[in-house]
């Protein structure tokens, strides 16, 4: 990427002006950055510290800051990738359906863990942010952070948070879960892939699920299942939880 200020040739500058106004550039650099980040990730033997979301976000912010581009310019192109989160949420019905027989056997433990997990995720983020002096806007933006992005953004909007900030917090939450999850389970001596998968999906949605699939297909499937169910549970429970906590705090 060239800095437009450093380009001597007016022809190149025209091309830059054209490109920075077109969605092509934002879309392309997103895919290229992710491709590079994913390759690095494979090179490190799939180390959670080389999470491709972290590397590609860092790379893209670096490029945008260096070229003096705004997020809005970038998002004009990147929105095509972002948009796919919607159909991807619908697509969660497929693993959910395929795991349904396992789910039916475990429906009671899964339901209990899911409701507890969603309430703990929402309640603890509001409570902790409140304790640490965060504004209401921050508390509300944090509340749905464990749900997958389009769901969390929709809830955030309904309860008075900032949807775009929530999207960032959702990504940070997913990264945190993907980084720490397997270590936490090791310390706690939790070996059951079902329990690990459910916990990963409830706490760290899609980014955690991507990590879970690397540990084992079963952990991945249950993480995907928990992500789908907790998207639904968060949408139902978190607005109610917010009212309840507002009455208490």
């Amino acid at each position: 990427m060239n800095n437009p200020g450093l380009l001597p040739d007016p022809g190149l500058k025209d091309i830059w002006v054209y490109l920075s106004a077109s969605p092509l550039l934002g879309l392309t650099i997103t895919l290229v950055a992710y491709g590079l980040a994913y390759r690095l990730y494979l090179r490190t033997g799939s180390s959670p510290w080389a999470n491709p979301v972290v590397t590609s976000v860092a790379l893209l912010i670096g490029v945008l800051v260096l070229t003096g581009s705004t997020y809005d310019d970038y998002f004009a192109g990147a929105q095509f990738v972002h948009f796919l989160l919607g159909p991807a949420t619908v697509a969660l019905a497929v693993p959910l359906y395929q795991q349904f027989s396992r789910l039916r056997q475990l429906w009671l433990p899964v339901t209990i863990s899911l409701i507890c997990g969603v309430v703990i995720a929402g309640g603890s983020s509001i409570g902790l942010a409140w304790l640490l002096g965060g504004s209401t806007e921050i508390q509300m933006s944090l509340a749905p952070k464990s749900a997958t992005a389009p769901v969390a953004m929709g809830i955030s909007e309904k309860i008075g948070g900032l949807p775009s900030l929530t999207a960032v917090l959702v990504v940070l939450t997913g990264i945190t879960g993907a980084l720490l999850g397997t270590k936490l389970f090791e310390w706690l001596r939790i070996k059951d892939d079902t329990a690990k998968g459910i916990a990963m999906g409830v706490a760290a949605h899609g980014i955690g699920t991507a990590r879970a699939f690397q540990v084992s297909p079963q952990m991945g499937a249950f993480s995907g299942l928990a992500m789908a169910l907790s998207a639904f549970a968060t949408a139902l429970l978190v607005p109610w939880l917010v009212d309840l906590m507002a009455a208490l705090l």
Partner: protein
Amino acid sequence: MQFLNGITLLLVYQLVGEVTVRLLGLPIPGPVLGMVMLFLTLMIRGRTPQSVDNAATALLSHLSLLFVPAGVGMMAHFGRIADEWLPITLALLLSTILTMVATALIMQLTTRWLAKPAGQGGCKDE
């Protein structure tokens, strides 16, 4: 063509979900309702059509990529995050750890308590 059919179907379910949520003023996001409706359709049909399976697998296997544009949004919120970095960082970190640990322990305990003791193979520990 199959992939196109699959992705079209996912979009149709999302669209119907969004429209229904708005028409009825439901408290859940449109894509979530779309997911529920697709799930019910698959249950009724009793199988996943190949086209839907292909499209879903393609989207879900690159799920991390889809979060990248939202993550880059951090640059638009640098100011706010810098202002309230302590509550944001600590609440996010501690709440995520707490959620993960509590959910895993609850799932492990309830599975042991509630699973049928008659040596049923579904949910035994390794």
